[in-house]
Structure formats: structure tokens, C-alpha cells
């Protein structure tokens, strides 16, 4: 059986993880394909139907301007998921690069890189995120447009604070792998250091990176929602899930559904991703007997 087949066999043992994978697939399909099936525009204002609960015309109800919450959530879900995946991609690239550099070069380079990693781990993330957004929102808006600018900035700042765990894991993996016989054999055959790293060490260090990356998607989605919930993420006309919650929190007494649907969506997505991460950890850790 191939290593990936074996991993899949182990993954299937974790019932909640398999279930969560299904939930996640359904959520992704809904936000990607949903807007093709549900044609109500996200900004169609209808004052005859404000803060209504779920009905046939508006399955998720409406907000205080009578805008359809289902189509707003489908739109916002695309952004939330895109932010999560893009920020994870950035965190993994930065983390793997720094971890690999630190792991392959001993001595001062390793020490310096680890000092930077520890420094980033002890930075207060949310205050700094807020500070960065406060200072850099306007210029980025000018370069990338209102939506693109905020997207780029949020992905950059969230990615900037997510790579440390990956870097530490990769470094630890490098420390044990570079002493292994197969690496020695590759070196004896005359492989250069970049080739040893790329072909021999990195593929074997992939397991923990995949797990950390999965958890990172969840963390990035929470971070984006938190910023939007504080009113400092995406602009008001872009209804991300966090933004919907922010808008709903002054109408809790008359329109609870308005908060429950986006909040539930964030919770469901993050929990599903965390369970999948748990399952992957079981599947990719060779020391664990299943």
C-alpha cells in the first residue's frame, strides 16, 4: 500500500474527521456553487421585509435593510474561506523556508532565526493586527482597490503571525532527519545541500506541516472574523461572516437569526477544519499505532 493510501486508511478510523471532511466539502461546494443557484443580489434593499426570520423567500431571513442573508452569507463565505486558505499558504511558505534554513544551518543562523521566531510568538497578535490595519489601510486601498487592498492586507498580516509554529516543527524535523542514513547516502552520492533538502528531507517532514497548515486555516478564519467583528476588517459593503455578526449585534433582541446563521457558519467551518486536522495528525504520525 502506498504511504498516502495508508494515511487514508488511518484517517478513515477517525469518525469525526471523516464526518467533518464531508461537512467541509458541503460548505465549500455551497459557497462556490451556491451563488449560481441562488440569484438574489447581496445588496438588494427591501424595506417591506426588514429583520424577518427565515421564510421561503429568504431561507436565512433578512437584515435591517431587508437584504437577503443567504446570498450575503454565500458571498461572505467565499471571502472567509479564501482568506483562510491564502493566509495559510503564506504562513506555510514562510514557516517552511525559515524552519528549513534554521534546521539545515547550525550555529548562529539557527540561533538568530529561532530568536526571531520566539519574538513573533510573544508579540501580542490582535493589537498588532489592529495597529497594522489602522496604519496601512488607506495606501493599500489606493493600490489594490477597496476590496483587493483589504484582502491583500488581511492575508499578509494574518500570514505574518501564523508561520512560527510551522517553522518550529520543520526545524525539529530537519534536526532529526538530517542525521538519518538515507540523507547520508544521498550526500555520499554527491547531492548538493539544496537537493538534499528539497528531494530527501522536505518530503519526509511534510506530515506535521500538513497538520499545522490545516489548523492554520481555522486560525486565519477566526482572525479574519475577529477583525471584521470589531468593525476593522472588510468594509461594510462586503458581508464576510464576521462583518454580518458585527452588524447583527445591535439587533439581537429582534433578529437573533441574523447573528445565529453567520456565527454558526464560522463555528461549523472552524470545528470541521480542526477535526480534520485531528484526523490528519492521527493519520500522518507514524509512531501512532492504529
Amino acid at each position: 500500500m502506498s504511504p498516502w493510501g495508508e494515511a487514508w486508511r488511518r484517517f478513515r478510523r477517525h469518525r469525526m474527521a471523516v464526518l467533518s471532511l464531508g461537512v467541509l466539502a458541503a460548505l465549500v461546494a455551497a459557497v462556490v456553487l451556491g451563488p449560481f443557484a441562488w440569484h438574489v443580489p447581496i445588496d438588494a434593499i427591501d424595506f417591506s421585509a426588514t429583520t424577518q426570520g427565515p421564510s421561503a423567500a429568504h431561507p436565512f431571513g433578512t437584515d435591517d435593510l431587508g437584504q437577503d442573508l443567504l446570498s450575503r452569507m454565500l458571498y461572505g463565505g467565499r471571502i472567509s474561506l479564501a482568506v483562510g486558505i491564502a493566509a495559510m499558504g503564506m504562513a506555510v511558505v514562510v514557516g517552511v523556508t525559515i524552519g528549513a534554513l534554521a534546521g539545515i544551518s547550525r550555529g548562529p543562523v539557527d540561533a538568530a532565526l529561532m530568536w526571531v521566531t520566539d519574538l513573533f510568538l510573544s508579540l501580542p497578535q490582535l493589537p498588532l493586527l489592529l495597529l497594522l490595519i489602522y496604519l496601512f489601510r488607506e495606501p493599500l486601498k489606493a493600490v489594490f482597490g477597496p476590496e483587493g487592498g483589504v484582502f491583500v492586507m488581511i492575508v499578509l498580516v494574518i500570514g505574518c503571525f501564523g508561520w512560527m509554529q510551522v517553522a518550529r516543527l520543520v526545524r525539529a524535523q530537519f534536526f532529526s532527519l538530517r542525521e538519518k542514513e538515507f540523507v547520508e547516502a544521498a550526500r555520499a552520492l554527491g547531492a548538493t545541500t539544496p537537493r538534499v533538502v528539497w528531494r530527501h528531507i522536505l518530503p519526509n517532514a511534510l506530515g506535521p506541516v500538513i497538520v499545522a497548515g490545516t489548523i492554520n486555516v481555522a486560525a486565519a478564519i477566526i482572525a479574519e472574523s475577529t477583525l471584521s467583528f470589531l468593525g476593522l476588517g472588510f468594509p461594510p459593503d462586503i458581508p464576510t461572516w464576521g462583518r454580518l455578526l458585527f452588524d447583527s449585534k445591535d439587533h439581537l433582541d429582534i433578529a437573533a437569526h441574523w447573528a445565529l446563521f453567520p456565527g454558526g457558519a464560522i463555528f461549523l467551518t472552524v470545528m470541521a477544519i480542526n477535526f480534520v486536522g485531528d484526523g490528519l495528525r492521527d493519520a500522518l504520525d507514524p509512531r501512532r499505532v492504529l
Partner: protein
Amino acid sequence: MGVFVLRRLALAVPSLLGISIVLFTVLALAPGDPFAELATNSNVPPEVRVHLRASLGLDDPVALRYLHWLAAMLRGDWGFSFISRIDVTTLIWQRVPVTLALIGSSQLLALAIALPVGTLSAVRPYSWFDRIASTIALAGFSLPTFFTGILLILVFSIKLDWLPFVYRADVEATGWAAAVEHVRQAIMPVVVLGLFQGAGWTRYVRSAVLDVVRLDHVTTARSKGLAERVVITRHVLRNALIPVVTLVALQMPTVFGGAIVTEQIFRIPGIGSLLIDAILRNDTPVIMGVTFVFSVLVILFNLVADLLYGLLDPRIAYR
């Protein structure tokens, strides 16, 4: 032990300097010139503007400007709030105790949940209790604080009308009634933050205890005939707490993030809500001050964790 404490204190200095460099870089890279308004004001001659810039040190080399800024921060000279016209330090000091009380009590709640639940889960791994506790812990850890806060308000303030959802510093009562009212309005924020932390910690405690329970010294303790309770508390838990302390210290930035959100939801007058208000009103000195205070608090808690670490594991202290 004294040498250990001193060494740890000395190690905190470079991280504090590192953080101050990060903060200053962000500030220096930020677009916007404080003298942009003067440049467009035709009443101010250009040479006055140039002179003003020079006298305030804005044309100095970056390294010199950093040292000036650092010296001012260390002296406690953090400037005036643009909005409320009082010293930033006074403004922040008024609010720090509230935030610390919120974080402290929620951490206690988190510990009270995580220690027993995590230990019981690990002592009988894959039992029913463990499965249910682990699933709930993962779910709780996935529930963002802002959503839990809204859910609690919906249930306990709006549907049941048991608890107030806006925190008020000036309660209209005295004596016991006031104390009761303060506790009542603190319940929901503390629970929101405590449950979130507790769920995360339960997972740490469980895996740490699982690692220790298999070790030989535990088997020895059992074979000596010690009661299970003594084995778990004395021989397992103390050793398991060592990695947990590290992980908890690593979580401190997240805890402060959660505190900011919680303060914002329940309108608690702490430094978190001060930060959000300052950002919404472009009050730069306050923003810088609060961010700096948060950084110092994170370093401080890391230091406390390091000291606890030495206390739990004597091998580290005497090395």
C-alpha cells in the same frame, strides 16, 4: 533560585527591545506625515516648517529617532490622547486593573475546568468520558469568543433576562448589593473567556498527562501501594504540568486577543476596549501606548511562566 530569576529577567530585556523595534518600525513605515497639514497651510512659511521638523528631530537618522522614542517610552512620557486630552499613561493605568481582573478570573475558571477534565480523560483514554470530553473540548476551542459572547447574551440577557449584558462601572447601589451587581455583570465575560481557554487547555493537559502516565516512576509509585489519588496528583500531575505551563505561556497573546473581543462585546472599560475606541477615532498616541502595554504584559506573563517552570522542575533552576 535567585540566579535563575535574574537570568530570566535579563533574557526578557532583549525580547522587550525586539518588540519595541517591531513597534517602531511599524510606526516609521506607516504612511502619513504629521506635518502634512502644515505643508498645505499657506500661513506657515516653508522655512518655519523645516525648522519645526528639525527641532522635533524628524530629520534625524532612523537609529537616533528610535533611541529618542525608546527613551520617551521608558520615561513614561507617552504623550496626550488626541480625544480625551489627558495623559496616555493616566488613561491606560485607569483601565489596566479591569483587564487584569477579567483575564485573571477567567484563567482561574479555565484551570478549574482543564485540570480535572484533562486528567480524568487521560487516566482513562478512549473511555466514554474521554471521547465526550475531547469532542466538547474541540468544539469549545472552535467557538470564537465573539460568537459565544453573543450566544450568552441571547440566552441569559434577552431570552431569560437573568444577567445584564452591558458592564457598568458605576453601579447604583452600595455595600453588598453593589458587590452582587458587580459579580452578576462579570459572570458572562469571565465565562466566555474562561470556557474558550479551558477548552484549549483541556487538550494540553490530556496529552501531557497521557505522556507521563506511561513512565516508569508512575508504575513504581503504584507498585509501592500508593493510593491512585496520590499517584495522580503527586507523581503524574506535577510532571505533566511542566509542558502545560509552556503551552499556556505560548497562548498568552491569544488570551489578550480574546480579552479585547470580550471587552468590546460587553462594553467593559478595560484597555482592550480602549484600544478599539482609539482606533475608531484615530487616537494614535493611545493606540501606540496600549499596544506597548499589551506587549509588556505578554512578556511579563512569559516571565511568570518561566519562573513557574523553574519551580515545578528543579533541574532547570539549578542548571
